[in-house]
């Protein structure tokens, strides 16, 4: 290991990146675009579910129920209809994904029997949305019931019985507003860093093979470790700059609450950068064409980061075998770490497990990468 050679390589690589528009675009524009696209585009919150209303009674009571749906903020009325078949048509055309029907004798039944049915219909082609809308509906009805009960009791001059009832008082920690953006943005940062990092380094060795400069380089006494360190160094700096950009825009632009320490953030981000840069470099050493290397780098970063990192799809709800596989997917550790640092303010002492996972990964990847580079043509 000779620092002079590493420095010579790092300096040369920096000049090449600086003069290569494609590398610069990947390094600087890709994070910007992806942060915008993914940061704004991905949201798991369902608000303003389009709702059709068929109020057969149109009394004060029935309108009060319908208004509760609107005032919850989760629904917005797209149509007021007057027949079952109109609801069917509206759903077919996709104009609403939920409908409520208040029956003709709603207020009388309520007054006489103490309870009255309201029908809710959901377009279940999108199961996730339906489940969430169903939950919202139950919430709306429950609060309506409480009010009706109170009103009824007051009208009859009695205090509502509270005996034998359990009241749930939910308290949501770490993401009090239940805003899915707070949960997703840290994941988006991990996805972008993985994609950009591996893309950048995937070209660094294959480019030299393609241009024929590699033959000259391997005829010199430079060692494979020096080549790896010298080539990764400038990309490591770029990776940290990209990370700083993504994390800063998460905090200051997307307003994700940041409760952790910047030191913890820096250490773990640096570690993750080493892993993704190492993966790109390993691919670049193995695949001697730039196109092939960049395609494979895209494949091995895009798929695991988006599907198995827990960035959008909760790992807890996956089948056991997939859950097991997700442990070997390196972004999973970083997504966990980022969310904990951002939302819980966790320090390294709480995060030792995922940090150890990343560290193990980094060591293995760098070891493989330093060995994969052969100073031979055959």
């Amino acid at each position, binding site marked *: 290991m000779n620092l002079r050679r590493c420095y*010579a390589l790092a300096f040369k690589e920096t000049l090449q990146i600086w003069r290569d528009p494609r590398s610069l675009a990947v390094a600087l524009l890709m994070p910007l675009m992806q942060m915008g696209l993914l940061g704004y585009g991905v949201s798991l919150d369902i608000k303003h579910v389009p709702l059709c209303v068929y109020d057969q009674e149109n009394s004060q009571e029935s309108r009060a129920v319908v208004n509760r749906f609107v005032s919850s903020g989760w629904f917005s009325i797209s149509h007021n209809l007057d027949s079952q078949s109109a609801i069917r048509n509206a759903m077919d055309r996709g104009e609403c994904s939920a409908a409520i029907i208040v029956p003709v004798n709603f207020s009388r039944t309520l007054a006489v029997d103490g309870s009255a049915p309201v029908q809710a219909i959901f377009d279940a082609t999108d199961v996730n949305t339906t489940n969430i809308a169903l939950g919202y509906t139950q919430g709306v009805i429950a609060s309506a019931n409480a009010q009706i009960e109170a009103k009824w009791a007051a009208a009859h001059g009695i205090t509502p019985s509270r005996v034998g009832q359990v009241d749930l008082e939910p308290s949501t920690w770490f993401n009090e507003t239940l805003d899915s953006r707070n949960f997703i943005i840290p994941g988006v940062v991990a996805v972008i860093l993985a994609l950009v990092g591996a893309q950048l380094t995937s070209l660094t060795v294959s480019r030299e093979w393609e241009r*024929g400069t590699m033959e000259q380089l391997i005829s010199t006494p430079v060692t494979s470790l020096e080549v790896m360190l010298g080539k990764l160094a400038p990309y490591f700096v770029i990776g940290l700059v990209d990370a700083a950009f993504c994390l800063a825009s998460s905090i200051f632009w997307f307003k994700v609450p940041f409760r952790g320490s910047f030191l913890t953030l820096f250490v773990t981000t640096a570690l993750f950068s080493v892993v993704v840069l190492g993966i790109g470099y390993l691919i670049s050493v193995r695949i001697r064409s730039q196109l092939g290397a960049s395609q494979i780098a895209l494949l091995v970063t895009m798929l695991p980061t988006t599907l198995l990192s827990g960035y959008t799809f909760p790992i807890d709800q996956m089948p056991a075998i997939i859950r097991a596989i997700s442990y070997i997917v390196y972004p999973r550790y970083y997504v966990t770490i980022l969310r904990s640092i951002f939302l819980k303010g966790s320090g390294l002492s709480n995060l030792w497990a995922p940090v150890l996972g990343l560290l193990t990964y980094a060591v293995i990847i760098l070891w493989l990468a330093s060995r994969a580079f052969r100073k*031979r043509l055959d």
Partner: protein
Amino acid sequence: MACPAVSTGLDTGIVPCQGEGMISADSTVPVHDAPVILTRGLTKTFQGFMAVDHLDLSLDRGEVVGFIGPNGAGKSTTIRMLCGLLKPSEGEAFVAGFNVGQEPEKVREHIGYMSQKFSLYGDLTVRENLVFFGGIYRVSRRDMGERMAFAISMAGLQGRENTLVQTLAGGWKQRLALGCAILHRPPVLFLDEPTSGVEPEARRSFWDLIHELAAEGVTILVSTHYMDEAEYCNRIALIDRGKLVALGSPTELRGHQLGGDLLEIGCTPLGAALKALAGAPGVIEAAIFGDKLHVVLAKGGLAAADLPDFLAGKGIKAGPASQVTPSLEDVFVRLVSMPHEEGDRT
């Protein structure tokens, strides 16, 4: 140090055999009288195809040996094995005293290499390339300025230090590549077709550089497919289909390899004459050479004076045959075509 007079076609400002600012072979070459490059039965096979076939070569210090042969003869493969870039399938090779197969890193510290394909960084400037290779070869910072200045003046690139290398013309690129390859003053140089695609004038000055280096004691193995360049070498190794076909100085090769007298004869039609002579008694070789025929006659067959009559008897008009001094090209045509004669002749 031997100091032969070498004419320099370049205005490099360098006078061979003076102390400062010149190339000198690294004094760490371990064995002094042993050959600097030595191969014994060096062989390389690619999936059953024998690219280099039991090659025995030996180069002394300060020698310029030309590696000549048709495309695919195994020149590049041999050079790559000697640089430690390809592992020999069989046999062994020593460069500067180190075994190529076992100590490739030691070998690499003592060699400079120019690959067939231009392999400097085109997106870096002249100076940046030199700084890079200086760093890779760990040229001390104290020496760096002087060596860079030398390489720049040798390549004739004064004033263009900040030009991107990809915008330079072929001859400059090659001389700069040579400059990068000798920044660390290696005692051994491998140049794989360094002048291919370079205009004649630039080729000429490139060879002057090679001789300057050799005069300093650098051992140089240079491959080329330009026959005229073979004349510049101390010795020529002719290789065909992986085998060493001939080895010797240009004069030796010209004198001994034909096996008979070389005659030049003008005749029409050329094609028919070639066919007629190919099977004639005493004709070792007949080949078209420009608008004439070159014929090698063995003693005891047809005599030179009989040739016009022999051809006239076949209905071919022929002028008188005159004896000529064989060029290296005649020798190569003769040597490279030899194995064909055994099987292909109809």
